[in-house]
């Protein structure tokens, strides 16, 4: 395959940045998208140019590190992570536009790498549970129904990649925050901090400068882990019931 790549290049956060066009020859349709970029970077390095910076880690679709806004969609045309996207999803001679996630709360570090620490701060605000010290508790000590366990696990599948923010026309982090609130609110272990968690995580989400939700459902459609917007409805319930009944003024 021969592809034309329109890639966003930006030296650092302060730089204005712009698109640079590259031609990728000899691309195999069996390559993953990141491998295709690896080959491009090898060529750039050989030519003495600065390789394209992009985030990646496990390349197994489980860590949430890879990103990229490919042809107007986060993680490209399939509902998967970019590392699990293969070049067979594109056609020979195609022009592919690659941009970083765009959000005020996700500043560009370099090229296609964005700083997603805002998500870490949302987690720090309440995405944890109180645990007793001492010996390891027995498995299944706390009974949890299958339905609830499944719902919690569905929410816990979120890998925090930020595709929801990237897909949202408002750069809203509601799908991420709601998944993190839900996975703990559903379980008995999460009850201790239940109210303050909803209040604090929503407050932190707002403070980071993410947008509000318009319920377009774009986040759910693009989420590589299929997190449902029913979690956003749950977050709204959690938040409103927390603010009217908690002791936090």
């Amino acid at each position, binding site marked *: 395959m021969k592809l034309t790549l329109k890639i966003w290049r930006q030296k650092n956060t302060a730089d204005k940045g712009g698109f640079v066009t590259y031609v990728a020859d000899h691309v195999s349709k069996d390559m993953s998208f990141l491998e295709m970029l690896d080959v491009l970077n090898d060529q750039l390095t050989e030519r003495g140019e600065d390789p394209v910076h992009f985030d990646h880690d496990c390349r197994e679709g489980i860590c949430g590190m890879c990103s990229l806004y490919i042809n107007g969609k986060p993680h490209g045309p399939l509902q998967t992570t970019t590392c699990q996207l293969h070049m067979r999803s594109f056609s020979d001679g195609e022009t592919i536009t690659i941009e970083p996630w765009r959000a*005020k*709360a996700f500043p560009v570090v370099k090229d296609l790498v964005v700083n997603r620490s805002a998500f870490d701060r949302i987690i720090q605000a309440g995405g944890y549970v109180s645990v007793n010290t001492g010996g390891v508790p027995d498995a299944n000590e706390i009974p949890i129904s299958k339905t609830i366990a499944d719902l919690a696990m569905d929410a816990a599948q979120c890998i925090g990649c930020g595709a929801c923010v990237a897909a949202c026309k408002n750069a*809203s982090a509601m799908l991420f925050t709601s998944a993190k609130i839900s996975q703990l609110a559903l379980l008995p272990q999460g009850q201790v901090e239940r109210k303050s968690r909803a209040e604090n995580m929503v407050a932190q989400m707002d403070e980071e400068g993410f947008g509000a939700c318009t319920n377009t459902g774009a986040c759910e459609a693009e989420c590589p882990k299929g997190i449902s917007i*029913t979690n956003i409805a749950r977050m709204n319930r959690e938040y*409103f019931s927390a603010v009217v009944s908690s002791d936090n003024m």
Partner: protein
Amino acid sequence: MTWVTKTLNSTLGRKLIMALTGLFLILFLTGHVSGNMLLFKGDGGQAFNMYAKFMTTNPAVKLLSYLTYISVLGHIIYSIALSQHNKSARPVPYSTSNGSSNSAWSSRNMGVLGTIILIFLVVHLQGFWAQMHWGEVPMITYEGEEYKNLFLIVSEAFKQEWLVALYVLSMIFLGFHLSHGFTSAFQTLGINHKKYSPAIKAIGTAYSILVPALFASMPVYIYFSSY
């Protein structure tokens, strides 16, 4: 900042206000369309004129109308605040964006649709509501009691093709606005459940087609019956 203002200033709180005012306006539209069906009665406007007098004089209706004004204002003010906040959340736009692949057009353009509806609302209120309240409306007597002949104003207005076209077009935009707004309001209120959501979705779709269609049929009916 108290907990109330803090909550209402949060993104979720602002959305709550959008949802509650939106749902109240949906209730208003239901009442408005039901009452205006009297235009089809074919009694020269008697029932409609009597209804119009009731709607402008009854104290309970007055209270509801104030709530409607507040809802309209709240819905507009908060939509502007939210739109600005949302715009600022993505200062650098994408060069290529494929929104149609993951969301409905109406859901991405609620602000545009709302602005068009607002422009329509100004024309609509100026034409009828303001006339009824402060304009010079000819009087008509039924069974010894005097009524403002709003029906005459309405029938005269809808003899103009451009106004009929404006009304029909605006109702199409209203339909798209409702098609997203109806279900979206319930989602914001946290009502997303497999027992209720299919019904909410179905009712929302039916509502967003039926109500604007009924509204649009009124000027069309009057236009053609004036021949």
